[in-house]
């Protein structure tokens, strides 16, 4: 086996040294009746070239090189080549959690830079080293709000990503934390009157997403005022991180839970991605996940360490803020490199291009269908209502190597034949025109 660095003679020598006659003796602690005496039913050992051939065939069975108009929590953005070039370095790729700071300063400093950039973008005071993804991060944010306020339960907007809501429900059902949902208005924003009815003295937090699942930018300040007036926290979830290039950061929020996939992370059929949690300094000890902090070494030199770990499971066990252990360090490093490449001006410029593409597309689609939720600002997603079932439109588009918008009927039956379309900097005018044409047929 080519990954194993031992010759038969090495193995024989080692067995002699430890005083065993055969390898089987090493497995004697396993009761005989449970020892496997047959080969595992897995593919036979393959050459590297065969492995590549197999996955290449799989990749070709997937849409490859298609125009993509799907967003809905996973966004198709250009990835500068330096990202993979840098994260492929073995020192980033094959290191473990930086528990030994003297030989992990690379990962630690990169994460410290990540935390700083997330704070700058979200307008929060502290950010952690990452969560699994935006959906689990939202669930963790909700549980954090419960710890901070000592209240039970949350009021969550129906315009939060439907799968985020499913994940939150799974997490909270075991903790006796009821989740109440509140609706949206014809302009696509949350229904404040409905929210006011649903907040109680036991509501730990209100959660909205902005831009929300329909692409509409919420009035965060107004929701914050209402939540705070009832003693609840406001959690803002962001699934399209690039929106922060042009959209005002949700500084009125108490906790921001963001998916950072847009920042240089491949779509990858849904993962791995990286969630981020950011909050106010006063709540940091209730925040889950790893945190990197600055300190000095014994010679006074600046260095970085994992810190405030008394919140975490390996110290606090069942009293920890979360059971989370792994973060998404490599993905966070990808995002850090991405944010560095585009930086202060580029993230804005890129976001402006997204806005321009989506605005053009929405104007064109408006000629063939109805654009819902008019009159409120959007970023790079919009909802088109058509006479035909969007599934039929999408089937036609597949023949033109185009993946159309996400049909909303599954989660929002009240919207009828509506689909959520997304345009990024990667959608050319030509692609948009082709898609619009198919809608009109």
């Amino acid at each position, binding site marked *: 086996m080519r990954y194993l660095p031992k010759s038969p003679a090495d193995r024989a020598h080692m067995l002699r040294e430890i005083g065993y006659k055969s390898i089987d003796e090493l497995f004697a602690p396993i009761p005989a009746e449970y020892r496997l005496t047959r080969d595992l039913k897995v593919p036979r050992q393959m050459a590297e070239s065969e492995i590549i051939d197999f996955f290449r065939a799989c990749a070709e069975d997937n849409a490859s090189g298609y125009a993509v108009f799907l967003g*809905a929590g996973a966004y198709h953005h250009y990835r500068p080549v330096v990202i993979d070039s840098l994260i492929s370095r073995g020192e980033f790729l094959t290191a473990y959690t930086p528990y030994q700071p003297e030989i992990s300063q690379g990962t630690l400093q990169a994460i410290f830079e990540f935390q700083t950039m997330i704070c700058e*973008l979200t307008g929060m005071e502290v950010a952690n080293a990452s969560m699994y993804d935006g959906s689990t991060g939202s669930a963790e944010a909700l549980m954090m709000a419960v710890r901070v306020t000592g209240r039970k339960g949350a009021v969550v907007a129906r315009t939060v990503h439907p799968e985020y809501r499913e994940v939150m429900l799974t997490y909270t059902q075991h903790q006796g934390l009821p989740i109440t949902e509140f609706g949206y208005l014809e302009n696509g924003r949350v229904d404040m009157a409905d929210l006011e009815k649903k907040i109680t003295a036991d509501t730990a937090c209100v959660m909205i997403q902005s831009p929300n699942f329909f692409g509409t930018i919420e009035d965060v300040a107004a929701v914050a005022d209402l939540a705070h007036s009832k003693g609840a926290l406001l959690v803002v979830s962001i699934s399209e991180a690039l929106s922060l290039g042009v959209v005002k950061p949700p500084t009125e929020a108490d906790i921001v839970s963001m998916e950072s996939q847009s920042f240089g992370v491949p779509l990858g059929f849904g993962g791995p991605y990286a969630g981020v949690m950011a909050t106010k300094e006063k709540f940091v000890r209730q925040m889950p996940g790893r945190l990197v902090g600055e300190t000095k070494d014994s010679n006074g030199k600046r260095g970085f360490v994992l810190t*405030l770990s008394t919140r975490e499971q390996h110290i606090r066990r069942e009293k920890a803020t979360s059971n989370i252990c792994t973060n998404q360090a490599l993905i966070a490093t990808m995002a850090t490199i991405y944010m560095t490449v585009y*930086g202060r001006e580029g993230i804005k410029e890129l976001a402006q291009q997204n806005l321009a593409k989506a605005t053009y597309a929405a104007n064109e689609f408006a000629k063939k269908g109805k654009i819902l939720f008019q009159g409120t600002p959007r970023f790079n997603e919009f909802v088109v209502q058509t006479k035909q079932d969007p599934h039929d439109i999408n089937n036609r588009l597949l023949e033109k190597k185009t993946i159309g918008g996400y049909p909303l009927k599954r989660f929002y039956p009240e919207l009828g034949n509506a689909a959520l379309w997304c345009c990024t900097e990667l959608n050319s005018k030509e692609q948009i025109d082709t898609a619009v044409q198919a809608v009109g047929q």
Partner: protein
Amino acid sequence: MSDKYIKKATRHVNQNEDLIFERSSPGKKGYRLPPLDVPEVDYKQALGQAARADLGNMPEVSEMEIIRHFTRLSTWNYAIDLGMYPLGSCTMKYNARVNEVVARLQGLAEAHPWQPEKVSQGALRIMKILADCLLDITGMDAITLQPAAGAHGEMTGIMLIHALLKSKGNPRKKILIPDSAHGTNPATAAICGYAVENLKSNAQGMVDINALASQMNEDVAGLMLTNPNTLGIFEQEIHKIAAILHDKGGLLYMDGANMNALVGKTRPGDFGVDVMHLNLHKTFSTPHGGGGPGSGPVACKKALEPFLPKPVVMSKPDGTVGLDYDRPQSVGRVRMFFGNFGMHVRALAYIMANGPDGLRQTTEDAVLNANYIRKKLDGTYELPYKSASMHEVVFSDHLQSEKGVKTGDVAKRLIDYGFHPYTVSFPLVVHGALMIEPTESESLDELDLFIDAMQSIAREVNEDPELVKTAPHSTRVSRLDETAAARKPVLRWKP
């Protein structure tokens, strides 16, 4: 080894890379966008009050500086690619490069999770084949690939137990957890709403069967057991453990963190385990990446299958692969989309590179390596439990502590010899633990170097304990003040 007077490599420019923000100045750029092919939109006008003023202190640097910055940072990390990384229970094995190549194929890397099933067949097939492989490896009946990491898998598994027991009328109140368990186990039980009851180990470092029998009752939902446990010892009475639980209607959860000791040699499903998670980033070689991403599939017996998170990947009668969302008894969804698919790709590539013979040989080499280290270091370091070791061995610092040297000091000194430290002070059942897991990826030569280093450090403890207590001496930064970091946390850069 007399590297006592080694000069620290702190003067070189490579060793003094600033924070990226400190390299930034207005007007520098690391990108260029293509010209816009649609009419421009004035965002301040379009967004009104929702428009952002500026992006604060985000960096402005050139591409050259970016490459140099992150390359320099990378050189401050230790990594498997540089040498042995014997962190016990973390299974730091070789991460094959072909895995990285196949995960980046365009049709996989650029696949949108919600693109139609008919243009996702390649990705779904990969998930289905991986699922089938993992089922045979574990001896289980059903599986979900959705959990994003080990602890996330634990949570999913305990939710399955809760759901099954609840469907029978009573989800019960407690989960039993041995004192040697990973910290994630009790934290998981707690977030699933269970009270945690500690289970003591016996003098052999295994579950005390009598204690288990007396603690097991109708209030106990199950036991979370790591096997081999965190002492590297196989629970030889596993069948009795399972029987005690099952007799009283409880379930046996296995933390699969140490599955690298078992693949191809025995199957948890055969020895009574009801549900378990696997760590693809440990046993199946997906890279740790400085602390993630992980991936924690959960495999279970038939009785738990109806409760698996949705969707489940399944073969359809027409020969295609699809996603089954129609699962009324499901515990729900634990992560959006389908989990860390990129890790599924890598794990399957690892399985294919090994085949059944390679997987078995891998396990045998992992166990052989640990036992070789044990034999060579026994006596130099105290071996608190004499039971046979599987893939890892746990010593204590008892002999060294007489000189005031602790496990953490020996670990730091190991850095000077070019190795990553072992896991320090865990498991908690051993005072001053040194937990060593070499994995199969180490050659005889590397193992001998490591053993020499550990013996040399033991001599230094006797001759010059201060040398060890102030280690490391050869790194870019010396021991860092972790207390100060926690007392007044500085968690971000400010201008």
